[in-house]
């Protein structure tokens, strides 16, 4: 089992969700985050005061999938979230030790 975690541009969320749904992945956690990579920030000017805004708003999505699905999920996200511009984000994949569905007590593959 894998977690596929991606940091994406906020306006790409719906396309990513549709892409994941189309390959049969149901269930997604989204968090509003801020950060910076190569895109850096921007400057804002209020009257005479200039501020460098270093942290840009992004969305972090997390999907738990069976190991066999991880590559397809990565591919779906990478395709849907891509604009070709700097700041498109990154995808991270890491292993899950254990999963429990709270309602039923099912574990691991049954709980995904």
């Amino acid at each position, binding site marked *: 089992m894998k977690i596929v975690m991606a940091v994406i541009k906020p306006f790409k969320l719906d396309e990513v969700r549709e892409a994941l749904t189309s390959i049969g992945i149901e269930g997604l956690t989204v968090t509003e985050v801020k950060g910076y990579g190569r895109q850096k920030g921007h400057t*804002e*000017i*209020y*009257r*005479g*005061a200039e*501020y460098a*805004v270093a942290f840009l708003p992004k969305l972090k999505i997390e999907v738990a999938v069976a190991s066999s699905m991880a590559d397809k999920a990565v591919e779906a996200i990478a395709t849907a979230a891509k604009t070709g511009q700097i700041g498109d984000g990154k995808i991270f994949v890491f292993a899950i030790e254990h999963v429990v569905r709270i309602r039923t007590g099912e574990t691991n593959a049954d709980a995904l």
Partner: protein
Amino acid sequence: MTNRFFKTSIAGGLASLLMAAAAVAQETAAEAPAAAAEAAATTMDKGDTAFMMISSVLVLFMILPGLALFYGGLVRAKNMLSVLMQCMMITAVVIVIWVVYGYSFAFGGSTSPWWGGTAKLFLGGVTMASEAATFTPGVVIPEYVFIVFQMTFACITPALIVGAFVERIKFSAVIAFVILWVTFAYFPIAHMVWDANGYLFGLGALDFAGGTVVHINAGIAALVAAIMIGKREGLGRDIMAPHSMTFTMVGASILWVGWFGFNAGSNLEANGGAALAMINTFTATAGAIIAWAAIEAVLRGKASMLGAASGLVAGLVAVTPAAGTIGPVGAIVLGAIASATCYLFVSKVKNSFGYDDSLDVFGIHGVGGIVGAIGTGIFSAASLGGIKGDDYSIAGQTMIQIQAVLVTIVWCAIVSVVALLIVKAVFGLRVSKEAESTGLDLTSHGEAAYHS
């Protein structure tokens, strides 16, 4: 505003417009029965009265929520409520002071050039039948309406100063400072400018709706306070960007709407004079908004919402003293000049001096007020579209305007310094560094504006 004598009359049904106002004003209530025919010589128009009532609440609307939102949007989210609260409490405190002694100190009827005396403490002697003069001899409005209209001006002026020391001032210090400041700066200067016995009125200074009394006065107090209270912690290091330009835009727009009460209402009668003030309040503001946006577009490549809102306020400030005497086209030029001057101050001059007038009260109200006061002397001339013809001297009037500005600056600066020293000794001016970094909403008021 002209004659500020009041009298208590037996409200009669008969009216004569030809009655000389001065003669009427010198009557006492005791003599009124003997001069019943003369007493009936004033006329009160329901249209004027209704217009002034609406104008008064429009000025209240400028403060709450207009100014409160305009300023509130410009601070960080952690200080939003402190700004709203300061505006609301100042309004409430000054209303009470106004009724107790403020009105008397400003318009109590004393012949002193400096203050109105104590004759109308607790609004003594004012009844439903009391009358206040307007610009037209013999035409009056209820004195209660005049009291309320002027009350709203007394409330907004100290509320304007708040912008200089937001995000770091102690709540107790704000209230104590405002009480001292309105007592020793606002009431005397209002008397000097608007009462027929006032020093600046006697010089012939033109200040239609309060450029000196309200805006220069508040602007100078703000500059003094910003310097004496000191900079916010982290200024130049931390991001202090406005937390809601949306609230700022809404607040600025409410200020514009409310300003029609401020300027047109200052005519005291719903007639052509009020109409002139009204159109000028439109055109000067439009000229100022366009000017600020154009300057930003040229110098920075982008025209900002805050720039447009700042231009809006600068234009309104500048047209305030001029609204009743300049023409609608001259107003566009005056507004644009004020915008350009204020832009220079808030984006260049302030940074080079390094004081933290956080929301640019001096840069916009002080500077815009001074441009407006001097511009009034220039644009009131008939040759430039104003209403002052023939024997009007631009140079002569402008010198009087400058004199009035200087008197206001000196008086206000001295009172502000002394008031702040007293408040500092008694309460202290600033919150602790910890409280400042946590934000005043939680540390001064125990609540938060937003929950996520």
